[in-house]
């Protein structure tokens, strides 16, 4: 690494911090970018800078958005009686793609993970409680991932929300265990939503 010019080393270093990118891939990407036309590379760096400058988390549901509150939270046609809890913004998009859900969302921005030391205080759980106290709903649908962390999160939330919500449901087990919600196809996810069952 000591032989690269400083700007090259710096980009390799920055790229390596991205998930799923090791030193080899970071080098390959860097030299790929060096060969591309300047305007193309500028467009990429602009896009990166703008996403950080212009995108925020909605202060109500914590989805990523350009305007706060987000469009889903201000849309008057969404059913206020339903609240769907997901781990990440990508999962929200996956639920939207099913076209079967018309309620609102709450994005936790993660899942409980004992092994990673990620506890309730590291997620948007407190905000979920505050939200439900101000604006009660009839049903909370727990659509966390069908893996250990997602299940643990659902179990924890079901217990926590019980005094606040009449009906707490968990999306059906039709989803293959171990996968991520965002990779599930619309049909499977739609069926899982349809077949949700009551918890606790």
């Amino acid at each position: 690494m000591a032989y690269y010019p400083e700007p090259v080393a710096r980009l390799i270093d920055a790229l390596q911090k991205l998930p799923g990118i090791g030193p080899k891939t970071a080098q390959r990407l860097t030299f790929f970018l060096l060969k591309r036309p300047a305007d193309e590379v500028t467009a990429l760096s602009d896009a990166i800078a703008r996403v950080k400058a212009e995108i925020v988390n909605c202060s109500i549901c914590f989805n990523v958005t350009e305007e706060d509150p987000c469009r889903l939270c201000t849309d008057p046609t969404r059913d206020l009686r339903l609240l769907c809890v997901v781990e990440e913004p990508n999962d929200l998009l996956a639920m939207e793609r099913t076209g079967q859900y018309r309620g609102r969302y709450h994005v936790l921005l993660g899942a409980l993970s004992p092994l990673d030391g990620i506890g309730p205080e590291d997620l948007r759980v407190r905000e979920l409680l505050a939200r439900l106290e101000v604006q009660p709903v009839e049903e909370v649908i727990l659509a966390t991932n069908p893996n250990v962390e997602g299940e643990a999160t659902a179990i924890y939330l079901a217990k926590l929300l019980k005094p606040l919500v009449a009906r707490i449901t968990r999306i059906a087990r039709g989803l293959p265990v171990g996968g991520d919600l965002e990779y599930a196809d619309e049909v499977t996810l739609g069926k899982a939503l349809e077949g949700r069952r009551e918890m606790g």
Partner: protein
Amino acid sequence: MALGESDRLATFYTREFGKVRGVAKSARRPRSRFGGGLELFTQGQLLFFETERSDLARVDSFDIVHPFQAAREDLERLMHGSWVVECLGRLSADRDPSPALYGLLLRTLRALEGPGPPSRAAFCFALRAVDLLGHRLRLDRCMECGKPSPPPARAARLDFAAGGLVCEPCARYGSDGVDLSGGAVAGLRRLRTVSWEEALGASLSPSLEAEMAGALEAQMARLIGQVPRTTRFRTQAGRPLGASR
């Protein structure tokens, strides 16, 4: 090796090779051939290949023999089981086989699935694991003056640096260790000698068990070099989460 976005890094504890860390290609996709096999607490048959450029193995397949599902569907069980797995994972080196530790892990997971309290299973694991990992503490005599261990009801200090018990007159307070009541010293000595089943089923007062478990947790944290992440999680999950800060 480069991890693709749908790949997973998984850690296994195997009978023949000890700890093996490997990459499972495309394991995040719902219809991956790994299915739910890479979920926490899953016993299975592992097939892996060494890779030349990395200390990570390439996981070819992991066929489920037994998923310890009950251990992950309850938050208490999951927390204690995760602590067990974290301690084992952080205190064992890659490719350092120990069939005894492997057996202990399986017994512990079985106990976590059973009707008993998960805290007891984790405690019994820790009691045996520190011995198997080569950190057995001497509880029969004072590490300083050599006098036999104090009779019941006499307190002593478990001094981690000294490698065992230090009697009250010899104890240097502020040393790296924990104070133990005579009852806890006697309890730890007894539980080390009885069978696994007897240790799991032993009738202990909650305060005595908490004292002994606390000493082992402290020893584990010391061996790991920091408080385990799972302990941090347990503390957080255990305290009330108010709607306002």
